[in-house]
């Protein structure tokens, strides 16, 4: 077995940590994040390591439960994005011709739309909520994956062995499963990781803007509530209230980015070579 590259190890480690926290939140969290477990705005203490928020919820518990929201969005929105992207990109690359032209036009068009304002508009009309967030992310971010997948499928499709497989009577389904899918496996994994990272950042951003699910206490929502407190930055309260969730978001996004870099190295060994 090859040694895991450092960036992969880092990414996987952080992900595993957050995963464990999300799964075990009820066990490791000292309180129910929705319970009034103390006075409002308590400073950190033995009972509340990160203090309490403006309504007396334990911040540490909120933080731990927040991992669930972020990871759910990462997984669901990432998977949705990649699924759409792979389907469209695969279809365009495999079919070629006018199908390809129409789909790629669509991709180009979507890529030139300003995404965040569009997301805000969509969420504003769809209503805020986790399912909506996931849906909107998947609907707007698939073109990036589609482009990459299309390019790869196109290049595989014209290889000799695929043509031979067709010659031997392999139908499109056979060719796709046997030859094309394996060729895009790592690319799909890479797309998943990158989209998941984007999804986490977007979800946090939406929650921050007040477009997140008001019932799902996410890290972005925590930052928003903290910022709502007038004069937050005049004391050091933000250090244990706003900073930890922001750091968690950063760390999770960073972990996914590193994982992506690791996968990219695997995809393109040329990146490893030192230039002369």
């Amino acid at each position, binding site marked *: 077995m090859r040694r895991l590259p450092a960036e992969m190890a880092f990414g996987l480690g952080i992900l595993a940590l957050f995963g464990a926290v999300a799964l075990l939140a009820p066990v490791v969290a000292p309180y129910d994040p929705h319970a009034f477990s103390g006075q409002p705005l308590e400073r950190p203490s033995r009972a509340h390591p990160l203090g309490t928020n403006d309504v007396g919820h334990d911040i540490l518990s909120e933080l731990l439960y927040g991992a669930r929201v972020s990871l759910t969005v990462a997984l669901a929105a990432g998977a949705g994005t990649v699924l759409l992207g792979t389907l469209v990109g695969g279809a365009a690359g495999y079919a070629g011709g006018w199908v390809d032209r129409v789909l790629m036009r669509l991709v*180009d*068009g979507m890529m*030139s*739309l*300003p*995404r*965040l*304002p*569009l997301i*805000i*508009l*969509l969420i*504003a*009309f*769809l*209503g805020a909520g986790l399912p909506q967030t996931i849906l909107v992310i998947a609907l707007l971010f698939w073109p990036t994956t589609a482009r990459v997948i299309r390019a790869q499928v196109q290049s595989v499709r014209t290889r000799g062995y695929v043509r031979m497989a067709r010659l031997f009577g392999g139908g499109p389904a056979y060719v796709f499963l046997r030859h094309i899918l394996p060729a895009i496996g790592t690319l799909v994994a890479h797309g998943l990781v990158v989209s998941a*990272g984007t999804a986490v*950042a977007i979800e*946090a*951003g939406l929650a*921050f*803007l*007040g*477009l997140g699910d008001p019932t799902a206490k996410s890290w972005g929502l925590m*930052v928003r509530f903290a*910022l709502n407190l007038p004069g937050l*930055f*005049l004391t*050091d309260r*933000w*250090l244990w209230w*706003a*900073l930890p969730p*922001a*750091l968690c*978001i*950063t760390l999770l*996004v*960073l972990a996914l*980015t590193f994982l992506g870099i690791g996968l990219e190295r695997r995809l393109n060994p040329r990146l490893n070579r*030192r*230039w002369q």
Partner: protein
Amino acid sequence: MNRVFQGFVGRVFSYLFSLWVILTLNFLLPRLMPGDPLAALLDPASSDYVFDPEVRAALEAYYGLDRPLLEQYARYLVGIFTGDLGRSIRLSRPVGELVASRLPWTLLLVGTALLLSSALALVAGTEAGWRRGSRTDRALVAVHLLLANVPVYLTGMLFIHLFGARLGWLPMAGGRTPFARYETLLAAALDIGRHLVLPALTLTLGMLGVKFLLVRNTMVTVLGEDFMLVARAKGLPEGRLKWGHGLRNAVLPFVAHLAAHAGMAITGAVFIETLFNYPGMGRLIFESVTARDYPVIQGVFLVVSAVVLTANLAADLLNARLDPRVLEG
């Protein structure tokens, strides 16, 4: 030359098409959404009911929901081109006016940050790429990798705390000192400048990471090209190699990405303006979202989209000027 001209016309058309898609999307979205959010505004039984009769009348007139869809569409388009973007529910003012008062702030913020981050990224990226594999390169890559992944509001919070609250050097919020009356233009510029520093710096850092990595990686690719070997074999001075051939080629993808970066900058601006209470479009979005002020959200969406599309076109044309291969296909 003819082919170049054709290419140019083609681009412009494709942007006009995108613009039309956006306009239409903006028209259809609120009308097709489940639950009919617009109707709710005029329905006394709904929680979104608009109580101000004047605003209600304006809304009714603007959306004209009782008319056939095509007529609504035609009126909508005519309205857009005559500058009528509807009326804010919350502030009871025309959306066009609101946007016009906010747009300059955002342009100032985004423009400053785009210029700064581009300049820094080009210089640092070129140097890092030139020294690929060295310790300087690795350190720069690590720093920018981090920058590219930190949400802007985190950097912003740190700055507010450090320079605003702790050190008290710079204002923590707003675009200018409230209720200030300026004696001279210079005083006004200074005040606005002081308020701009932190948000602009935050946004600059927010974009720097991605831009730097783009320049640096392209530079590494360019340096591996055969023409760089030839340029080196020609005995050209280092500066000519690095900037004249290296960056000159590495700048092409950078320019091609400018439009995407403009979109990114606007995204960042939304967060930063919210955080710094900066009176731009981003803050306006934030406020309107909180108040469910649909006409404003739509208006902002339209204007921002138009700005991004224009940036797209501009970047494309710039790229065509810089790269003789573009446009000729």
